[in-house]
């Protein structure tokens, strides 16, 4: 990516022009203009991204209850506290379980929808829109529908009505601390919201697979269906699949909205890392030191994931999408 950076404009112009104004692109001083364009952004980035990060690293070594300008240095005590207190490690377990459910299911469902929609010839745009539409809904609104209508724990809830037809007893979907029912609620919610989004990515990738590959396979006698899917479609989608899986992982890591609204912060189960941070820094204890230490730990963990992602994707989109 570093091969094509910033020299575009300054390349020698066609002969006559370069005679008149040698080695100059647009009029004006490049250094001044560079800072004119990037200055506002860089100042904002420094104040609202870099300063908070440095500040929180500093805070994480202090006893900072109810204050953001502490004076009592305590070394690694905040880190010890959050790592030994069971809440924080538990939240990482919650994330792991959640990711184990949501990543494969979203991958499979969005790929499946993309394959279906890609084969449609009539009403293709309509169906694509239908699957994509839930992306517009916030996690809060979806949590509300899931909790108060579909998976309401009382008789009138949709899920309980349906299982009632088969003679099953009502289930307390989200308020029962023993898995698996609350996972069903959480995972279906996120599936509904995000599958359409990843379907769009897969659709774009599917349309970039050269049709010659399928033609060649047909000549070689490959059966349509599973064989072409397994040996052509799937390998051709590898870059997109990798990107999707990493994006799903990072999104699951930051899960907060639906857990907060479905399960609640007072519950002892299904607390995600961000919920634990929220409680320690902004709950009753207002412990900015511990909260900052948690933010540092989570940041380091996700940096590792992003570095792996950077290895795979070169910090952005793969070459397959164009």
């Amino acid at each position, binding site marked *: 990516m570093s091969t094509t950076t910033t020299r575009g404009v300054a390349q020698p112009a066609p002969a006559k022009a370069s005679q008149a104004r040698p080695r100059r692109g647009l009029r004006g001083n490049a250094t001044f203009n560079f800072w004119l364009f990037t200055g506002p952004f860089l100042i904002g980035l420094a104040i609202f991204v870099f300063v908070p990060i440095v*500040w929180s690293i500093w805070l994480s070594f202090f006893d900072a209850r109810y204050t953001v300008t502490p004076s009592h240095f305590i070394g690694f005590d905040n880190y010890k506290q959050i790592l030994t207190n069971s809440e924080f490690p538990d939240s990482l377990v919650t994330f792991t379980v959640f990711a184990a459910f949501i990543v494969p299911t979203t991958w499979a469902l969005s790929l499946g929808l993309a394959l279906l929609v890609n084969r449609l010839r009539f009403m293709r745009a309509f169906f694509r829109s239908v699957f994509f539409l839930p992306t517009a809904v916030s996690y809060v609104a979806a949590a509300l529908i899931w909790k108060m209508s579909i998976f309401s724990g009382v008789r*009138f809830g949709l899920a309980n009505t349906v299982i009632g037809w088969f003679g099953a007893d009502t289930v307390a979907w989200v308020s029962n601390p023993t898995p698996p029912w609350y996972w069903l609620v959480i995972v279906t919610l996120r599936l509904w919201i995000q599958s359409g989004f990843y379907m769009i990515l897969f659709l774009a990738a599917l349309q970039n697979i050269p049709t010659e590959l399928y033609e060649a396979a047909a000549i070689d006698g490959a059966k349509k269906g599973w064989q072409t899917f397994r040996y052509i479609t799937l390998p051709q989608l590898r870059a997109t699949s990798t990107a999707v899986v990493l994006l799903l992982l990072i999104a699951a890591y930051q899960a907060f909205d639906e857990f907060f609204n479905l399960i609640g912060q007072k519950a002892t189960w299904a607390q995600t890392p961000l919920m634990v941070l929220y409680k320690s820094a902004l709950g009753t204890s207002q412990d900015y030191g511990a909260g900052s230490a948690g*933010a540092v730990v989570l940041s380091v963990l996700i940096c590792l994931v992003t570095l792996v992602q950077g290895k795979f994707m070169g910090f952005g989109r793969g070459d397959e*999408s164009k």
Partner: protein
Amino acid sequence: MTTTAPQIGKQRKKGRGVLGNTGLYIAVGVAALLFLIPFYLIVRNALSTDLEITGENWKVLPSFQWGNISELFDDPTVDFGRSMINSLLVAVLTTFGTLLVCSLAGYGLARIPYKHANKVFYAVLATLMVPTAVTFVPSFVLVSSLGWVDTYRGLIIPGLFSGFTCFLFRQYFLGFPKELEEAARVDGLGYWGAYWRIVVPNSLNFFAAIATITFISAWNSFLWPLVIGQDPSSWTVQIALSTFMTNQTVNFHLIFMATAISILPLIFVFLFLQRWLVQGIAQTGIKG
């Protein structure tokens, strides 16, 4: 570019006939129905009485209580109208601010031959490693010491400086045709003039795509407004919904009417701007 090659399509049609296609459409149709159920539930419950929602007998159609709308806006416990206005202001200003700041920076990084531009670019890239949601505690510490809690400034400004959006603009401008800028050069324009008169007017599709994505994520954002909006007067609509849900007295019909109204603006955005949205997602990969 269209779908799979016509040849393959024909072969498939011959091989599978009407039956295969019917199966395909049934599968897609069932999936689509499942995806639409939650929307149906919102509308049905929003226009029902509480008794219809919680009653024993499931009714497919509600009794269309349009009065629920005015009842919601008159409800004294949560100022829903105020929260809608807050959300609208925050989402619109965030979108314009992000586009302005990030596109300028993206252009500067992509096109202005400054010798340290690469170093600056790597500093921006470094911020992509940590998602902003993970650093909300330090951001809150900063914003609260600026005294921006419960203000529009606090809700909007910290979110404007998105390294990712800047990165997307840079990638886009790298591919912007140089010939157009050369025309600007012939006209004697500087970088600033060329940017506003040539580059921006010729990039409106890309701006629209990023604007749509930014607007949606600003409207639906929950964690940051929750942290900043401590007083009800600064709640966005997502916080109001969340509060409705946890209130002691549960008015089902009002809650669902609030949900329906909170989703409505985005449904419009989707219906009218979907082209740019899909294009934007396919082009840029991701946001968010």
